[in-house]
């Protein structure tokens, strides 16, 4: 030991490592032979008794007693453990627990070669290893990683693709819907144009006769857009003609686009052509600037479309100004050509009078709407189905939400889904939520749970409207017409005054109330109740833009409707004898006395507005209309 120390200090080879020299020194000590000694061949050394070695020798020579770190140290100097399975029997010749270590330069009696034993340079050594054993595994790892990454990419792409296709589908549906709406608007515009042309023609005639030129026209201009009034008179060219031309151009474009659309119900060809010939005959002065007239007429007309079942409404036109030019019986009294659609109107007009108990209402669909009725209760399902059938709908039923979701998922296409809320297996709200993940078909909640928070929930989950239960035939029809405007045949421009009256009505009688109601379904139960029970109150608001919340639509109707009304009014001011006829008109048109009104939800108390409506129309029409006029002219 002491000798070991001294010999270390006298060691000539300064290059050799301290550790290796200590090791060599240790092995030179014969007193350790039982514990650690040179191997039999002299080219290795053997630790015979691991435990003793660790406890007694290591501390003396290496200042620690950790065999593992001793072995580690050896490894650093590139000593290798001699594998015992080199022997046949797997036994080391030095005993079972012996550790034999070897280094090519570490030999007994060869102190000089110790200098060649160097501590391994860590980096190159590692590299060497990697190039040797682990090359294949590393490559496999790498490949595996790549595969995983690619799989993830594929998965992400797939997800993205799914999302995009859903989006695409939604967009397509929206586009279709918008296109249909535009078409309908086109139709309306053309009809208005035709109408305005005839008015214009007559005004010219009249003004010539009366020698009061431009008077009527000035009126028309000022009602439609006050700023336009003056300029129109000065305008030597024909804005009306210009408008028609624009319309025709537009029409061509639209028809071109239509080529790509599948189920286009009603191409505007028939009516679209109308303006042109009529126009040529009336090239003088414009009654309306297209933008103003079109916009207003548009909106107003869309409302009228919803009024499939004709409400007992007083025509402001008839009451205040003269005949209702659109009323079928007056066609012959109207001194100017009528739009060709008149026949349809006639038949539609007559039907409420003719309708007896079992007569099926044909609300005038372009094609039969395809309705999915989701309802677990057999009674409701049968009656609802029967009602729908009587409205010329194609009906499919589902027993619960699950079946409904499956049907939609399987690709069934519907124009509207009527959905019960409380159902076994899968309720209406959840079903709607699921369907909304991939489909935008309008979904109407059909339920007796119409508290404000319920309704809010329905809307949150993507429902479009609420039909309170028990529904009536009328409330159901109103709902259909509200959400299936795009399937309605174009009603001629006639019912505009009607809806004008309706809107006026609402504005007068329940303006504050209904505004509140519509703007927040989360009102008190009572108020929201009235709102939902009278879907016909503002028919068509959502029809214009089905997904726009009603709040926005709320304020729109009043102004355009009033404008449209003015248009009509202007057109009809003239023939004095017709006035008498006109006063009878409302009575004649009023088809269905309040009988059904009473059945409205069987909740007259909750909904006084609704029940009273017919009477209010009848008696209060005049005061109702006047404020509107005042507002308009003022």
């Amino acid at each position: 030991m002491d000798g070991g120390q001294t010999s270390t200090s006298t060691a000539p080879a300064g290059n050799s490592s301290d550790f290796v020299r200590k090791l060599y020194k240790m092995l030179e000590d014969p007193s350790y032979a039982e514990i650690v000694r040179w191997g039999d061949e002299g080219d290795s050394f053997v630790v015979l008794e691991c435990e003793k070695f660790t406890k007694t020798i290591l501390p003396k020579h290496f200042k620690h007693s950790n065999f593992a770190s001793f072995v580690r140290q050896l490894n650093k100097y590139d000593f290798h453990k001699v594998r015992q399975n080199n022997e046949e029997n797997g036994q080391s010749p030095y005993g079972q627990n012996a550790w034999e270590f070897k280094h090519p330069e570490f030999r007994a009696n060869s102190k000089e070669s110790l200098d060649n034993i160097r501590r391994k340079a860590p980096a190159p050594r590692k590299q060497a290893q990697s190039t040797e054993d682990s090359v294949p595994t590393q490559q496999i790892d790498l490949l595996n990683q790549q595969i995983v990454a690619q799989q993830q990419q594929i998965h992400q792409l797939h997800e993205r693709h799914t999302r995009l296709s859903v989006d695409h589908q939604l967009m397509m549906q929206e586009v279709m819907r918008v296109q249909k709406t535009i078409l309908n608007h086109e139709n309306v515009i053309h009809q208005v144009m035709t109408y305005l042309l005839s008015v214009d023609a007559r005004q010219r005639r009249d003004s010539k006769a009366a020698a009061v030129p431009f008077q009527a026209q000035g009126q028309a201009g000022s009602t439609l857009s006050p700023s336009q009034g003056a300029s129109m008179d000065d305008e030597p060219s024909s804005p009306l003609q210009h408008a028609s031309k624009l319309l025709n151009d537009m029409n061509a474009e639209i028809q071109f686009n239509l080529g790509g659309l599948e189920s286009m119900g009603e191409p505007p060809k028939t009516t679209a052509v109308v303006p042109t010939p009529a126009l040529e005959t009336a090239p003088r002065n414009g009654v309306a600037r297209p933008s103003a007239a079109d916009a207003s007429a548009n909106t107003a007309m869309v409302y009228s479309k919803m009024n499939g079942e004709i409400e007992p409404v007083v025509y402001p036109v008839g009451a205040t100004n003269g005949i209702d030019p659109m009323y079928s019986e007056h066609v012959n009294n109207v001194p100017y050509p009528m739009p060709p659609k008149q026949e349809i109107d006639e038949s539609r007009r007559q039907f409420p009078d003719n309708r007896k108990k079992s007569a099926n209402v044909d609300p005038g669909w372009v094609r039969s709407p395809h309705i999915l009725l989701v309802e677990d209760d057999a009674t409701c399902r049968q009656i609802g189905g029967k009602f729908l059938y009587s409205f010329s709908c194609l009906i499919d039923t589902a027993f619960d939400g699950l079946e409904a979701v499956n049907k939609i998922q399987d690709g069934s296409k519907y124009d509207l889904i009527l959905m019960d809320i409380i159902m076994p297996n899968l309720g209406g709200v959840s079903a709607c939520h699921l369907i909304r993940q991939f489909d935008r078909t309008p979904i109407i909640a059909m339920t007796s749970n119409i508290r404000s928070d319920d309704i809010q929930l329905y809307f949150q989950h993507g429902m479009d409207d609420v039909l309170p239960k028990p529904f009536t035939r009328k409330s159901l029809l109103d709902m259909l017409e509200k959400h299936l405007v795009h399937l309605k045949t174009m009603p001629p421009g006639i019912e505009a005054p009607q809806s004008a009256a309706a809107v006026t009505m609402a504005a007068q009688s329940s303006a504050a109330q209904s505004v509140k109601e519509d703007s927040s379904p989360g009102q008190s139960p009572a108020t929201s109740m009235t709102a939902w029970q009278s879907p016909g109150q503002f028919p068509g608001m959502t029809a214009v833009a089905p997904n726009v919340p009603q709040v926005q639509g709320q304020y729109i109707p009043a102004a355009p409707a009033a404008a449209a009304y003015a248009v009509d009014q202007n057109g009809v001011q003239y023939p004095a004898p017709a006035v008498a006829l006109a006063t009878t008109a409302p009575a004649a048109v009023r088809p269905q006395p309040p009988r059904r009104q009473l059945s409205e939800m069987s909740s007259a108390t909750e909904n006084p507005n609704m029940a009273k409506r017919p009477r209010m129309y009848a008696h209060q029409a005049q005061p109702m209309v006047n404020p509107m006029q005042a507002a308009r002219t003022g």
Partner: protein
Amino acid sequence: MAPTTTTKTVEEPPKETKEIPSTLAEMKGSIDESTFEQILEMDDDDSDRDFSKGIVFGFFDQAESTFVKMEDALRREDLSDLSSLGHYLKGSSATLGLTKVKDACEKIQHYGAGKDETGSTDEPEKKTSLSRIEKTLTQVKEDYKEVEAFLRKYYGEDEESA
């Protein structure tokens, strides 16, 4: 064979002391006329009334089996079951305009949900809710019997119902 629906034939069922009314108007308290009429309107033929009759008789089956289920749920003291049964029958009775039955079912629905009869206030006592349901169930069965008798007679089957 049977009197047509609108005639005012007075038929005195032998077992009942009370006369079963023949017209809808006489049932005003139990049946909402306009609601029921709009179902009658759906009949293709006023004389056989296949459609409305099918629905009404379907409702009889539904109501009777629901009452049995309610009694069962009452024995099991299963309030939530009672509530949903109430809701279920409420829907169909309301659709037919059977107001009395509908109102009672609504009460059962609320009681079952641990509320008072209007559904606005909580009723913490399960026992109270159960006993209220029991009472209402007895009542609704009577109300139902009344409209059933009327409707069976209305459809010319009063003999069987008695």
